[in-house]
C-alpha cells in the first residue's frame, strides 16, 4: 500500500504540470492575500475614522436629538482570506427614531457607486478555482491514462487488491494537492501575521485550522470526482473534456449563473411602492401635527423666539418652551409609531431582494466549487447571514436605546431639543411688549437680542449643566460575532453535501474499478 502511494506521489510531484501549477497557485494566492491584507488595513483605518467621528459628534452633543446612535464594528480578521458578502470592511447599523434598520451596511459602501461593478479577489477564490483545477488535471487521466499507456495492466499483474490501488491513488493525489495548498496557506498566513493591523483573537486560530481542513477536504472531493470520471471513461481525452467542462460550469458558470437564476426565481418589487408609502407616512405625520396644533394653538410669535443652532433650541420663553415641549412629545410618539410601520413597508419591499440573495447561498450546494466558497464565508463570518444577524442585533439595540431615553423622560422634558437649565434667562423676557415690526430680522430690537444670544452662546460652552449625562446610556454589547458552534450550525448542510459527494464519488470509483478492464 505504502509503495503504491509513494509511486503516485512521485508520479504527481515530479511532473512539469504540477511544478507550473504550484508556482502559479502560490503566486496568485499570495497576491490575493496581500491585496486582502492591504484592503483590510484600509478598511480598518476608515472604520477607526468613522467611529472616531461618531464619538466626537456624540461627545459634543448637548441635546438628545444630536446623538447619533449608529453602531459600528471593525472588520473580521478572517475576511482577508475569504471576503464573502461582508468583505474586509467594517460594518455599521444606521438607525434613528424614525428608522428601524433592516441590515448592516459595509462601512466601505461610502466608496463611490461606480466602483460597485468591480469584483474583488480573495484567497478562497484562488483555492476554489485554481487548486480545484489542479485537482482536475491530476485526476482525470489517473486511471484511463494508465490504461492507455499500459502501466495499469502491469500494476494489476502484481498481487495487490484493486481497492488498494484506488485508495493509493486517492491518498497520493490528495497529498500531492496538499503540497501547493499548504505552501500557499502558510505563506498567506505569514502575510497576515506580518500585518500588525490584523489581530487574530478568540477562536480565529481554531477557525484558521478548520479552514485548512475544509480546503483539504474540498480538494479531496474534487480530486475524487475527477478520479471517478477517469474510472468511468476509457480514454483520457474524453475524461479531460468531461472534467474541464464540469469545472467550467461548476466554477465560473455558477458565479454568475446562480445569482441570475435566483433573480429569475424571485420577483423584485419596485422601490417606488415602498417610497410612496414612506411619503404617505410623512404626510400623515405632518397632518397629525397640524391637527394637534389646531387643538393646542401656539402662543404668539414673540413667545417662540429662540436661538436655534444645529436643531438645538436655546433661550426660549418659558411659555413658548412649554408649548414646544408638549408639541415635541406628541411628535416623537407619532414618529416612533410611524417608524415601525415604515419598517414593515420597507421589509415587505426588501424581503424578496433579501431572499434572492439568500437563495444564492443556499443553492450554492449545487456546485462543489460554490459550496466550498460559501462554506469559507460562513467560517470567516462574512456571509450574508452574518450581516443580517448583525442587523437584527442593531434592531434590538435600537429598542434598548429608545427605552433608555423614555426612562430618562427625554421625550417629554424638553431635553430632546433644548439644553437650557431651568433658570435660563429667555431671549425675549417680556414678549407682551414686543410688536410685530420689532420681530423682523433686520429690526434694531431683534439685532440686539440676537447679539445678546450670541454672547450667551459663547459662555454656554463652559456651562457644565448643559452637558448630557450619558454614563448610564446602554452600550451596544451584543455578541455580534457568531460563536464556532453557531457558525457550524449554518455550515451544516454545505458540509454534509461536501462529505457526501466525496464519499459517493470515492465509492463509485472503488466499485467501478473492481470491474475495470485494463486492456
Amino acid at each position, binding site marked *: 500500500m505504502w509503495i503504491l502511494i509513494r509511486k503516485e506521489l512521485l508520479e504527481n510531484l515530479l*511532473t512539469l504540470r504540477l511544478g507550473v501549477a504550484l508556482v502559479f497557485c502560490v503566486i*496568485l494566492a499570495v497576491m490575493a492575500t496581500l491585496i486582502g491584507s492591504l484592503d483590510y488595513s484600509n478598511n480598518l483605518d476608515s472604520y477607526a475614522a468613522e467611529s472616531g467621528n461618531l464619538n466626537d459628534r456624540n461627545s459634543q452633543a448637548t441635546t438628545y436629538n444630536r446623538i447619533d446612535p449608529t453602531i459600528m464594528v471593525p472588520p473580521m480578521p478572517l475576511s482577508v482570506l475569504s471576503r464573502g458578502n461582508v468583505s474586509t470592511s467594517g460594518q455599521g447599523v444606521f438607525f434613528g427614531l424614525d428608522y428601524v434598520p433592516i441590515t448592516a451596511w459595509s462601512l466601505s459602501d461610502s466608496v463611490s*457607486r*461606480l466602483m460597485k461593478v468591480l469584483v474583488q479577489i480573495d484567497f478562497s477564490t*484562488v483555492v476554489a478555482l485554481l487548486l480545484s483545477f489542479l485537482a482536475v488535471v491530476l485526476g482525470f*487521466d489517473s486511471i484511463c491514462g494508465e490504461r492507455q499507456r499500459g502501466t495499469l495492466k502491469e500494476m494489476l499483474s502484481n498481487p495487490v487488491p484493486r481497492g488498494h490501488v484506488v485508495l493509493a491513488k486517492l491518498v497520493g493525489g490528495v497529498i500531492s494537492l496538499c503540497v501547493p495548498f499548504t505552501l500557499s496557506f502558510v505563506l498567506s498566513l505569514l502575510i497576515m501575521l506580518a500585518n500588525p493591523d490584523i489581530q487574530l483573537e478568540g477562536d480565529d486560530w481554531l477557525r484558521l485550522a478548520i479552514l485548512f481542513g475544509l480546503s483539504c477536504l474540498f480538494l479531496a472531493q474534487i480530486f475524487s470526482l475527477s478520479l471517478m470520471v477517469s474510472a468511468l471513461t476509457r480514454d483520457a481525452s474524453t475524461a479531460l473534456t468531461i472534467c474541464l467542462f464540469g469545472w467550467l460550469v461548476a466554477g*465560473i458558470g455558477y458565479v454568475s449563473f446562480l445569482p441570475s*437564476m435566483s433573480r429569475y426565481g424571485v420577483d423584485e418589487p419596485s422601490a417606488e411602492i415602498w417610497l410612496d408609502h414612506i411619503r404617505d407616512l410623512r404626510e400623515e405625520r405632518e397632518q397629525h401635527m397640524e391637527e394637534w396644533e389646531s387643538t393646542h394653538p401656539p402662543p404668539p410669535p414673540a413667545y417662540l423666539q429662540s436661538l436655534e443652532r444645529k436643531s438645538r433650541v436655546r433661550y426660549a420663553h418659558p411659555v413658548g418652551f412649554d408649548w414646544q415641549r408638549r408639541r415635541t412629545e406628541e411628535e416623537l410618539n407619532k414618529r416612533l409609531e410611524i417608524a415601525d410601520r415604515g419598517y414593515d413597508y420597507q421589509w415587505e419591499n426588501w424581503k424578496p431582494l433579501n431572499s*434572492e440573495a439568500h437563495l444564492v447561498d443556499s443553492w450554492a450546494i449545487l456546485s462543489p466549487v460554490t459550496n466550498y466558497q460559501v462554506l469559507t464565508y460562513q467560517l470567516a463570518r462574512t456571509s450574508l447571514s452574518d450581516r443580517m444577524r448583525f442587523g437584527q442585533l442593531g434592531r434590538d439595540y435600537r429598542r434598548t436605546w429608545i427605552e433608555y431615553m423614555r426612562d430618562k423622560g427625554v421625550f417629554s422634558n424638553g431635553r430632546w431639543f433644548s439644553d437650557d437649565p431651568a433658570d435660563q434667562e429667555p431671549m425675549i423676557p417680556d414678549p407682551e411688549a414686543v410688536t410685530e415690526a420689532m420681530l423682523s430680522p*433686520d429690526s434694531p430690537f431683534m439685532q440686539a437680542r440676537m447679539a445678546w444670544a450670541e454672547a450667551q452662546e459663547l459662555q454656554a460652552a463652559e456651562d457644565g449643566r448643559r452637558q448630557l449625562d450619558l454614563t448610564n446610556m446602554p452600550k451596544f454589547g451584543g455578541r455580534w460575532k457568531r460563536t464556532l458552534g453557531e457558525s457550524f450550525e449554518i455550515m451544516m448542510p454545505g458540509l454534509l453535501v461536501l462529505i457526501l459527494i466525496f464519499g459517493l464519488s470515492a465509492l463509485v470509483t472503488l466499485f467501478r474499478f473492481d470491474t475495470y478492464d485494463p486492456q
Partner: protein
Amino acid sequence: MTAVLLHQLRDNLRSLRFQTSLIVLLMFFVGNGIIYAHKMDRVAQEAELATHSDESRYEGAETLRQAVSANYKIRAPEAGIEFILEAGSDWFPYGMNVSPESGRFTNLSHARTVNYWMRTFEVMDWGVIVRYVLSFLCIVLSYNAISGEREGGTLRLVLANPLSRGQFLMGKFLAHLLTLSVTLMLGSLISLAILALSGVLELNGMVARSYLFFFVGAVFYAALFLLLGMGISAVARTSATSLVVLIMTWTALIVVIPQTSYLIAIRVVEPAGFYFDQLEDFENQFRETMVAEGIAPRQPELARVDAYALEHRYAAKLNELDGELNQRVRAIEQNNLRQFSIARGVNLLSPGFAFQYTVEALLGTGIHRFRTFRDQANQYRSALREFLRARDGADPDSPHLFFVPDFMSDKPLDSSLIPRFHLQPIPLGERLAAAVVPLSILLLETVLAFFFAMHALNRSELAAP
C-alpha cells in the same frame, strides 16, 4: 492551407470536445435569453411605475412657486441592450434628484431597484459569456493544436507536404475560429430569438448595429486566445503542460487581474467617503451665518414695504450657497469618475476587459453612457431654472426673487410646459473615439499573439523527443 482548414473543420465537428463546447455555449446563451426576458420585462414594468411617479411631480406644480420648490427625479431609460452588456446598468446611479430652488444640490441616485446584498456577483450577459466561456473554449480547443499532432506523430507527416508552417498555422487557426464564430453566432441568435419572441425586445437597427459590433469584437477576442493557445501548444513539450500553463494564464488574465483593480484604484484616488455629512455641515453653517447676519426672509407683506431689500440680499446669499454646494458635488463626482477610470486602466491589462470596453464604447453604454447622463442631467437643472426664470420674468406682479419659492410668481402655470428630461444618445464619432484605446490594445495583443504563435511554431520540434 485550405486542405488543412477543411481537415481541421471536419476533425472539430467530430470531436467530443467541440460538441461539448457547443452544448455548453448554447446552454449559457439560452440561460441568458430566459433570464433577460424575465429581467427586461420586470425592469420595463418598474420603469412604467417610475415614469408615472416622476410625471406626477410635474403635474403637481400648479403655480411657479410650487414648480420651484418641487423635487424632480429624472432617470436615464434602459439602454435596451442590457442582455449584450449589462455594463453597470445595475450599479451606476442612473437617476438624479433635481430641485430648481436655490441652495439645493443635485445628487445622483439609483434609477431603479438595486439589490445591495447581491453586490459581490457578476451578471450573465453576453459580455460575461464571451469573456469567460468563449475564451475558455478557445483554450480547450487549441491547447493541443500543435503538441497533440506532435505526440501523435502527424505533425511531421503534415509538414512533409509542400506546405509552409505559416500556412499550416493559419489553416488550423481559421478552422478553429470559424467553428467558434459559427457557434457564437448560433448561440447569440438563439438568445435574441428568445428575447424577441417573449416580446421584451424589438429587433431594430440599433439592436442590429450593437449585435454587429459585439460579434466583431468577440471574434477578435476569440482569435487572440486561439493564437495564444496554439503558440503555447507549440512551445510546450506535452499537451498536459500546455493545458496547465494555458488555464493558469487564463485564470490570471481573466479572473485575477480584473479583481485587483478595485483596490489599486482606491489606493490611487482617495474615496470621497460619507460626503453627505460634510455637505450638510457646510450648508448648516452657511445658513446659520446668514441668520446671525440678520439675512432672513420676512413675511411677504412686511417685505413689500422696502421693495424686498433684505430678501434680495437673502436670494443673493442663497445663490452663492447654491453655487458652492453644487461645485462641491461636482468635484466629488469628478473624483469618483477619476477613481473608476484608474480601475478601468488596470482592467485593460486583461484582454477580457479590452474586449469588454471596446464593445462598451462602440455600443455607447457603460461608463460612457453614465458620464453622458450625468452631464446632461446637470445641464437639465440649468435649463429648468432658465425656463422658470423666464416665466417669472414675464409676470409683472412677481418680486423676481429667483428660486426663492415664497417670492416668486404665484400665477397658475401650465405644468405641461415645464421642460422634461430626455437622454440624448452618444454620437457615433464620440463612440468610435472612446473605442480607440481598448480596441488598439485588443488588436495589438492579437497581433502579438499571432507573431508569438508563428515564432513558436517555426522553432518547434516536429517530433516528440
